[in-house]
């Protein structure tokens, strides 16, 4: 293995952080979707699930920062700063980068409203949160089109694994949705005995 040169390093870090970001983001989505699953109101939601969803989302911001920074600074390809947030503004691989920008925008809106959730109120927060269902597919499509990693077997496996996890979670959620806002409560306590 040759030692990586400076320019190549940026490229590798960008790809690596991108893959890590996809994994983390997929986990965030699965945790968020799983919060509404289950036949009892409480079976799938614990404090841990909710807090993990939130904490991982903040990690995603860090990965995203690294991914975007290294991609823009890399002089081998020309992606301006604007292309990071303005979809389809990049001349280099317009579609692929544009999808990434779309993901950044929608995920950004979800993030900002979530940080200000208590001030916004539940309804407004929930309405914007739906954009997560735009952000993830855009991120995945960006990974598949912009990344060159599908040729590496373990990267491809990871990416398709993420897709499978998210798809499973969504299907399970749709099935659970059919049961209505309140489903069966937890089992009733056993009866103690006769009257009096």
């Amino acid at each position: 293995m040759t030692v990586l040169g400076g320019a190549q390093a940026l490229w590798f870090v960008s790809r690596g952080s991108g893959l890590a970001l996809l994994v983390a983001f997929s986990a965030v989505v699965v945790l968020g979707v799983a919060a509404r699953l289950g036949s009892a109101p409480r079976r799938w939601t614990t404090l841990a699930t909710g807090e993990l969803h939130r904490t991982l989302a903040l990690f995603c911001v860090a990965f995203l920062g690294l991914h975007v920074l290294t991609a823009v600074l890399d002089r081998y390809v020309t992606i301006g700063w604007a292309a990071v947030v303005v979809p389809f503004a990049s001349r280099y691989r317009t579609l692929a980068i544009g999808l990434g920008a779309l993901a950044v925008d929608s995920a950004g809106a979800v993030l900002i409203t979530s940080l200000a959730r208590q001030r916004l109120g539940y309804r407004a927060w929930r309405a914007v949160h739906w954009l997560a269902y735009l952000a993830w597919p855009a991120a995945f499509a960006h990974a598949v089109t912009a990344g060159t990693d599908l040729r590496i077997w373990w990267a491809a496996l990871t990416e398709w694994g993420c897709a499978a996890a998210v798809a499973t979670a969504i299907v399970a959620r749709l099935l659970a949705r059919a049961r209505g806002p309140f489903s069966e409560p937890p089992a009733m306590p056993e009866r103690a005995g006769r009257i009096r």
Partner: protein
Amino acid sequence: MTGDSGARLRVDPIACDGRGLCAEALPELITLDDWGFPITSGQPVPAWLLADARETARACPKLALRLEHLRSPQPARHPGSQPRSGL
């Protein structure tokens, strides 16, 4: 810190879905009824639990748990209770 914080936990029963995160996060103040829905005592939150109460209200997925500030802070009720360490 001993004494009351002048704040009280309240559940909006219409917003609440009975997910139970609050009782997990703050078992000192919140218990669940036989159907999984939170019961709050209505008593002021002790000062040493105020930060936890705030975090718990933030963690509620439906924003049904609210921390209400009472108009005048209550005098210390349990002078003997020990504060949590590491607050």
